[in-house]
């Protein structure tokens, strides 16, 4: 198809062909669009937390089903890369399996489930328990890119608020939450302040995973295909969940629970309901980590920060209970 060398620049079309680089694989994403995504990602990395618009292309998945993450991953992945895709911490989920197969078949990258061996991790709803390392890229699929969407509806006003770092209405929203509910109820997609400047949604990861974004060794790319915007958190960036000084940030935690398979009580656990209304059982959300914990191939203490937050909250609650009784 593309036999033009960069020196043969006759028409606009052929110049574009030369710019596009190697022949595209017959498939789903053209090289020029990938370049656009890479430029947007570089902009996002240069301005941590800032939402960069891009021309989201049609993908073989519906918008809202990971089309943004898919475009980011397709733009980043190389033949020699190992790719891990998870949905709710699970490599074997239907959506995760299909996305992983789709990408590897079109790029030549290898399929991977071990977080440690993956170069790119595309994820919906979770950040792996295994701490990410320098050189890895985490691609998060984002359904709602705008953290202010519940607070003001006008897009002009949202942009003005970001431009002027005018987040008073976000703080009022948190204040109202505590007034009405006694605590901040925002669960998935808890608003964070990135490098002291932009308020960002960390995508619908649980609160448990939010501290993992702070000062991470890896690059995080968050991409919303439906909303045609992406944003990024470069390595070693301050990511701070918004909360009042006298209302500490808390993570999900059910005291006394542990994974029924690997016994971990320091990982993010999900409940499986029992039969006929019997009490449920708990297991790790991150299947790769759970499997490796069982074979002794996972670090004994990794989740450090989230579980420490959970335990501190528990100690506070016990203390308050003692004080009131």
């Amino acid at each position, binding site marked *: 198809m593309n036999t033009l060398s960069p020196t043969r620049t006759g028409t606009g079309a052929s110049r574009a062909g030369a710019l596009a680089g190697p022949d595209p694989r017959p498939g789903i994403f053209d090289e020029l669009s990938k370049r656009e995504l890479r430029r947007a990602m570089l902009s996002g990395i240069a301005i941590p937390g800032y939402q960069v618009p891009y021309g989201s292309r049609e993908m073989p998945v519906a918008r809202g089903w990971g089309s943004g993450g898919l475009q980011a991953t397709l733009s980043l992945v190389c033949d020699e890369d190992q790719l891990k895709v998870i949905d709710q911490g699970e490599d074997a989920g239907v959506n995760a399996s299909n996305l992983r197969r789709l990408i590897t078949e079109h790029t030549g990258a290898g399929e991977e489930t071990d977080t440690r061996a993956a170069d790119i991790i595309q994820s919906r709803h979770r950040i792996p328990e295994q701490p990410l390392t320098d050189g890895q890229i985490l691609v998060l699929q984002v359904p709602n890119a705008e953290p202010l969407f519940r607070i003001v509806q006008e897009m002009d006003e949202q942009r003005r608020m970001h*431009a*002027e770092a*005018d*987040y*008073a*209405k976000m*703080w*009022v929203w948190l*204040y*109202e939450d*505590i*007034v*009405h509910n006694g605590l901040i109820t925002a669960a998935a997609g808890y608003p964070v302040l990135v490098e002291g400047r932009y308020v960002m949604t960390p995508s619908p990861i649980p609160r448990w995973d939010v501290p993992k974004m702070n000062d991470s060794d890896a690059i995080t790319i968050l991409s919303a295909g439906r909303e045609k915007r992406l944003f990024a958190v470069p390595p070693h960036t301050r990511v701070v969940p918004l909360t*009042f*000084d*006298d*209302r500490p940030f808390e993570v999900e935690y059910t005291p006394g629970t542990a994974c029924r398979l690997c016994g971990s009580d320091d990982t993010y656990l999900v409940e499986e309901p029992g039969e006929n209304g019997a009490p449920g059982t708990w297991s790790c959300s991150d299947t790769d980590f759970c499997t490796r914990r069982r074979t002794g191939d996972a670090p004994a203490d990794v989740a450090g920060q989230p579980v420490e937050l959970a335990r501190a909250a528990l100690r506070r609650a016990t203390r308050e209970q003692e004080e009131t009784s």
Partner: protein
Amino acid sequence: MSTHTPQSRPWALKVSGLGRIYGDPSPASLTGTGPEHGTAVSPSTGAVVAAWDVSFEVAPGEALGIIGESGSGKSTVMRCIAGDEAATTGGIALRSVADGTVNLCDLLPSARRRLRLKDIAAVYQDPAAGLNLDVTAGGNIADPLTAVGWRSYDGIRQRAAELLERVEVPLSRMDDLVRTFSGGMRQRVQIAKALANDPPVLLLDEPTTGLDASVAAGVLDLLRGLLEETGVAAVVVSHDFGVIDMLTRRVLVMKHGRVVESGLTDQLLEDPQHPYSQQLVAAARG
């Protein structure tokens, strides 16, 4: 325009030669407008000269009234000072901004908006313009507080309670949505919000219009007390001489976009010079 400000008192707000024209801003628009022509609409260009050549100073602890009928330009003057709209010409200076050496009209819109946090506050006739009705009374006051960096939940609640107490809103209503409040109570919350960061300048645009007489009297009493206690420099815009008489010491009378008379409020009430002022006073006396 003479201002009657004693030289010894430094102004907190100074407005000089303020003008706002909707439409062609060239001098041609001025000809044929003003009270002597009985219109604010330019016969040659069709532009509306909403306000022209308005100048005054307000000292800390002083309240200045601007009175006039609907369309006289008094609210336009207030909106220009508040930064809700851009003046066509003239100067606006606040003592709190670079000791009064900066013309606010030269600032970028973003810088202008920031002044609304600490340096200047406005209370509007319609509480919905200054409040979010779907947020609690405390939450509305939390807005300007968090905007200037308050990050303690208990601290914010304490300050909000203090302000609500000052404007005589029962603390039991602090966590109710403002939408559930009566008109008078909404206005009190709006006043509390405006005072949250102790601004040196307060603008009041028809603060009691739309309230029934007994409620209006209560809000006026409150405002008079607050103006005396806080030492804030206030500009009160109203079409009602009763309000101006109760709250202000000096007053400007506006008609068709121009100031037609100015002076001490009690003197002007006793002995209005301009025929229009005489009309207004007669109307107030009923």
